[in-house]
């Protein structure tokens, strides 16, 4: 089975600024990987390379065995972005309309059929937004909105879910619920790539950690990560960490 994501010796620079330096990383299907690094470390750039939105200057990026740039099965990728890149703040759209957008990649030019609407309903139910489905998106809380975007990815029956700091501005309780939802989806077989800069969140919830600061400083399980030197290397000496017990 092809790995979900495969980067080999990837270099990428914006103008004269080197953002990604010789990164090689493989994410197998079914993994839950946390990508962590300080601000400006190239996490979002790496994600854009993985999603095929940018072309690497050197090296290759593969999605499910194909070149990410020419990867055509957009419905297999779910993407929850960092800030609202969408017009949710101003545009009148209901939650259901947003979640249905996830289905459009599968439906193509035709009309949405009964089966498609059912998938949308199931996606809404999975994230527990069924009661709010006819409400305008801008009337939802931050946490609810992020769940709507996950439902959008579920509606497209994505195999890979990529989230870029999805809980910025979300309250603590909603955050816990959010990560429980991700764990559940992971147990159902979804491959998840989660970008976070909160180290505690990452180590508590994911199997595998990839730590990046332009270069890849670490790639392995989360327990060993904390015990390694990678944090200091990536973040610099003056970082602090709240210790907590691992199961």
């Amino acid at each position, binding site marked *: 089975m092809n790995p979900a994501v495969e980067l080999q010796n990837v270099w990428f620079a914006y103008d004269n600024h080197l953002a990604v330096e010789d990164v090689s990383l493989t994410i197998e299907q079914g993994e839950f990987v946390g990508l962590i690094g300080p601000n400006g470390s190239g996490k979002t750039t790496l994600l854009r390379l993985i999603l095929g939105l940018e072309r690497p200057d050197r090296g290759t990026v593969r999605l499910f065995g194909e070149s990410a740039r020419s990867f055509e099965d957009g419905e297999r990728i779910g*993407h929850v972005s960092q800030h609202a890149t*969408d017009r949710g703040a101003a545009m009148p*759209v*209901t939650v259901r309309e947003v979640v249905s*957008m996830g289905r*459009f990649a599968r439906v193509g030019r035709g009309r949405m059929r009964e089966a498609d609407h059912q998938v949308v309903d199931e996606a809404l139910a999975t994230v527990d937004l069924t009661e*709010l489905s006819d409400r305008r998106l801008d009337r939802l809380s931050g946490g609810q909105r992020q769940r709507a975007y996950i439902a959008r990815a579920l509606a497209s029956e994505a195999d890979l879910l990529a989230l870029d700091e999805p809980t910025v501005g979300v309250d603590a309780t909603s955050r816990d619920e959010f990560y429980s939802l991700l764990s559940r989806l992971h147990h159902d077989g979804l491959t998840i790539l989660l970008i976070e800069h909160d180290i505690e969140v990452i180590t508590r919830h994911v199997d595998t950690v990839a730590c990046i600061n332009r270069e890849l400083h670490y790639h392995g399980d989360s327990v060993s990560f904390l015990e390694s030197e990678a944090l200091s290397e990536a973040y610099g000496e003056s970082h602090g960490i709240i210790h907590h017990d691992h199961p």
Partner: protein
Amino acid sequence: MTEEQRPTADGGTTDITGSIRGQITACLTRSRIRRLEHAGLGIAALLTLAMLSFLLLEWLRAYSGGATLLYSQFLIIGEWLDFYLGTIVFQVPSTWRALATAVVIGVVAPVIGAFLIHRQMALIGETLAHTAFAGVAAGVVVVAFTGWQGSIILFDLGSQGALLFVALVVSALGALGLQWLSDRSQTYGDVPIAIVLAGSFAIGTLLISWSREFAPITVDVEGFLFGSLALVTTAGARMVAVTSVLVLAVIAVYYKQFMFITFDEQAARVARLPVDRFNTLLVVMTAVVVVGAMQILGVILVAAMLVVPAATASQLARSFRETIALGILAGQAAAIGGLLFSLLAGLPPGGSIVVVAIAIYLLAVVVSNRSPSGVPAY
């Protein structure tokens, strides 16, 4: 929440006070609103079909001499209207032609506008209008130098039609150029657009002044700038009808894709939608709608028809589908109301329609619980 309680914008329910707004909102329960909307849309659809059939009948009459009976029904209705209103305009075909054009524009402009205003592309409409003006001027020069009378293959557009046709071509090319420009600058930024906007208008004025020396056509500049009922020739009205039907068909087929791209262009790219192609299509369709609507509204005000009814709809709508529906209602109300006012008061149609559209918008702002800051129009 029961059906009798008025849902407020934040999803809760409100205490019905004795205020006027309270009375209004008490009347307008969700189910009643839905029924009103459906009724309104039904009327709008009937009107549009009636007006389109008028244009079709006129065309049939001109080319085959048939359909005279149905056609004259419209003129008979016009005579009745004149009798009751004490006017003389409604029995004349050109009035019906102008009315038909206005009705169709009232449908298609807000539909396109809904996809523009949420991406800060409304300024594109304004720019394309100015490009169309340059196109008209270019048309004058083309006609002067080539002696073209306006016949293409089997169609005879007439001299005004010829100008419109050139304007259409120039505007469509302008749209492609704008798209090219914005692809390079990542956004539909201010400066390149301002340059194209001002530049095309400047070129237009220069061409028109220069052409006065030798052109056989006198261009009704004021008419093109402010709109004029006299400008709506048979060719012009037919052009609006045909292009509007095409634009509406394209939007109906690709509604999902356009909605997705409008809402979240980046997510649409991740989902591998051909975003650039759809953007180009949208801008070209805007150019087409603008050239058609320009006849009645004039170059200066035509962009308002793209923006104001769609903004009205955004104030009130609870879903994007509803935005389109309400946009059509607001657009038609403005177009018909404004045109009737202009006919009865003898004032320019462009200003009349836009004033009515804005009045409807302000009403929507008052009635909705939402602040009007939501939609950045320019």
